[in-house]
């Protein structure tokens, strides 16, 4: 439990984490374990992006912990040469909360999926977010159950035919971004497995955020739900679907940037032609708006068929973290009452002497 060597090396979420000057490369973070996802699985791309991103943080390997639940994505920690905890289904955010709030000197990353994080572990996810524990949660959303071989998940579209829904699923899916915002998460972002540059920019922003960061990663499962995100990947159409959110920039999209968003008085922004609406009429993205309603409205643009899918950082606001406040209470109690003394504790209250 070493002291941070330098509190000012960037990455706001790492203020209390030791940093190293030693040169690190992607190789330093690869474990000796053979990676065992199916060929073509989107998880490979995410793993590679993550491994090559980690050296940027300048955090010694021993101060990084990856905690996961159960599912294909949850094998992630085995492939990283850091500390890792592959736990049980849905519970990773709870385990990470205990770890992060007792060890502020660690950089803690939770890896989960749409089944793990939104179905069996939905409760822990929303509570970790509302508490604003200093952890980064990466939710790999492939809209299907992979490890149990192809049942629909809480993000599968309604009507989807799967092993457990031969006549189509009846469930209305979760929009993970809307859900996280509903829980008043302080950092909410979305990215795509195949866009390494974007993925890493979002990881960077998450690491810079002090508090809980939630990143939804659209991840392709070629075995059970191939091409689920095709409209966002196909180079010929994707620019009509993807809205890249950049803080301080007007929200424009389309092949030539010809489409944009215009604010409306109520809720979801309106899609307009930039030519008609004019640049000045466009919505300028502000990730720091305190009211989550703004980011929520953006999240509602997405839907079946990906009519308009924003990616990037929806929301990034400051709020005291759970773990820092927990430590502060311990410090304050010690300051006010002095360090605890066991003998005095046992003898507190009414005592009497015999003999």
């Amino acid at each position, binding site marked *: *439990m*070493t002291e941070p060597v330098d509190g000012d090396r960037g990455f706001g979420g790492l203020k209390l984490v030791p940093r190293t000057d030693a040169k690190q490369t992607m190789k330093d973070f690869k*474990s000796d*374990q053979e990676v065992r996802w199916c060929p073509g699985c989107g998880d490979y791309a995410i793993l590679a992006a993550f491994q090559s991103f980690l050296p940027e943080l300048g955090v*010694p*390997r*021993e*101060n*990084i*912990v990856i*905690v996961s639940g159960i599912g294909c994505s949850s094998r992630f*920690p*085995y492939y990283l*040469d*850091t*500390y*890792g*905890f*592959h*736990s*049980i289904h849905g*519970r990773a955010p*709870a*385990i*990470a*909360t*205990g*770890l*992060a*709030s*007792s*060890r502020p*000197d*660690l950089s803690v990353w939770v890896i989960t999926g749409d089944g793990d994080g939104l179905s069996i572990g939905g*409760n*822990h996810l929303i*509570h970790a977010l509302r508490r604003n524990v200093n952890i980064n949660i990466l939710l790999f959303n492939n809209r299907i159950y992979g490890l149990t071989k192809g049942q629909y998940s809480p993000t599968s579209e309604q009507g989807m035919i799967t092993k457990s829904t031969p006549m189509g699923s009846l469930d209305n899916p979760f929009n993970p971004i809307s859900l996280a915002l509903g829980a008043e998460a302080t950092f909410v972002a979305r990215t795509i497995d195949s866009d390494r540059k974007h993925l890493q920019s979002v990881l960077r922003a998450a690491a810079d955020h002090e508090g809980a960061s939630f990143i939804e990663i659209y991840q392709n499962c070629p075995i059970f739900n191939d091409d689920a995100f095709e409209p966002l990947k196909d180079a010929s159409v994707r620019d009509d679907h993807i809205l890249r959110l950049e803080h301080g920039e007007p929200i424009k999209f389309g092949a030539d940037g010809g489409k944009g968003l215009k604010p409306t008085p109520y809720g979801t922004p309106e899609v307009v032609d930039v030519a008609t609406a004019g640049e000045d009429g466009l919505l300028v993205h502000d990730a720091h708006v305190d009211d989550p309603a703004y980011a929520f409205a953006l999240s509602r643009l997405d839907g079946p068929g990906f009519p308009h899918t924003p990616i990037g950082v929806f929301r990034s606001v400051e709020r005291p973290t759970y773990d820092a406040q*927990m430590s502060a*209470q*311990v410090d*304050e*109690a*010690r300051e*006010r*009452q*002095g*360090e*605890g003394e*066991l*003998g005095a*504790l*046992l*003898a507190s*209250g*009414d*005592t*009497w*002497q*015999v*003999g």
Partner: protein
Amino acid sequence: MTKQVQQLDRVIIRFAGDSGDGMQLTGDRFTQETASFGNDLSTLPNFPAEIRAPAGTLPGVSSFQLHFADHDIMTPGDAPNVLVAMNPAALKANLGDLPRGADLIANTDEFTKRNLSKVGYETNPLEDDSLSEFRVHAVPLTSLTVKALEDFEISKKDAERAKNMFALGLLSWLYNRPTEGTLRFLESKFAKKPEILKSNVAAFQAGWNYGETTEAFSVSYEIKPAVLPPGTYRNITGNLALSYGLIAGSRLSGRPLFLGSYPITPASDILHELSRHKKFGVRTFQAEDEIAGVGAALGAAFGGSLGVTTTSGPGMALKAETIGLGVSVELPLIVVDVQRAGPSTGMPTKTEQADLLQAMFGRNGESPVPVIAPRSPSDCFDAAIEAVRIATKYRTPVVLLSDGYLANGSEPWRLPEVSELPDITVADAAEPNGEDGAFLPFKRDPETLARPWAVPGTAGLEHRIGGIEKSDVDGNISYSPSNHDRMVRLRQAKIDGIANDIEPLEVDDPHDDTKVLVLGWGGTYGSIGAAVRRIRRAGGKVAQAHLRHLNPFPANLGEVLGRYDKVLVPEINLGQLALLLRGRFLVDVIGYNRVRGLPFKAEELAGVIQDVIDSD
């Protein structure tokens, strides 16, 4: 007039009233007075799960029983010598326990037609002959209190509320209790409400004066202090002792305490208590559910803290999967189960011992965990330290099985010398333990079979753990059949080996050629001990032994069982320890089982023991 003072060697008082009458507070204060006077004592609170059950009804009755004596005693007593009944419901609910000749103090103001009919009394029992076998003291407690407080600027409701203080004052006079403690207590409790403070003090004094001056009570009683081993004493409940034991365990092991918990009766007090002791570096996390509570505790344990979770039976069921994970990843974890009557919600405020098999076996796969049970309220302190010792030394979840009776019951506790508490520090792994600087997270200590506790932040020991089966020594994922068989046996052997690291079972058997052994565990220690005393006083021979370690059993248990012709196992369940003993030792133990949500009575157990002695 000077009143007669009569000497008694022991008394059992039961305060009973409506949930809103403040009976628990009254009982608690009387207990503190009694403790500071130096009597030995034992208490039994008994209250409904509902916060405010309908007033004046039988389900709404709350009671507090206190047994105190001039000698050492073991139980809160079977039957009260004195019943304070604040209303007809309290009388009706408790009358059955009252022996002939007992004193009954009844608040006549509440014996109205309406209140009587609420509980099915057609006539007022205070006015017909139905209570002739008791010494009835009919006292208008409410109106006397209101009258005593007429000069205070408080509402009638507040004045009426103070009737419990009047009753406390009266009983304090009757048993010559010191009053400073109660006055101090009221001062701090009502420091911000001076008028309420003054009126409560006045009500308390009015009650005392009522006893001293009126003719309703001609005798007061004196119970000399008990002769106890020298030392500093305090009165303590099981939940408080357990909380202190966890803090002590954290100190003694050098591990910061992290509690992950979800509120549940009767365990919540431990969460409340620990949250007050942050200056000891204690972190308390009130989780979103039972599963998150234990999950966070296990996460903290991974980080090197003493991870603790506290719950009761239904919460144990929810935590099972995470405890299994703890078994698989071999991390220390303290799981406190304050047992209550089940199954399901059961009776949340009533005691039971029926989670033993759940603690032993309530997980998937071969998933052994040590199980430890305290025997008395103050013993919860030592049992908690022992749980911490075993969990940290062997890197395993440990279940600490308290119960509702121990949790809320209290007794005097001789404070231990802090310097004499055991040193249970366990070092973190600091260095790679394999060839060429490799770290092998499942390479075991040859003696304890514990794996290294390698905490994040330690360079060179980066490793991955998880619930998937691990290959022996290197800890990588393994589906090898022979490896799994080996790991299952290693985990079992580790827990079994703890038998060599715990105290052998002590047997209390002052006679030669005793034929019958009474073997108990957990909260029944007092009742069994009191029953054994009765048998011996009457000239009978019986041996007593009490298990603190339920898993593994002490190494000499089989030999002890073999020494006696008959082994009687009283339990507040349908025979869970009996099942384990039969399975393990092929001994045909005799069970005595009652599940009424209450502790055994000494008299009842003495009868059962006598029957076993007399049979054949």
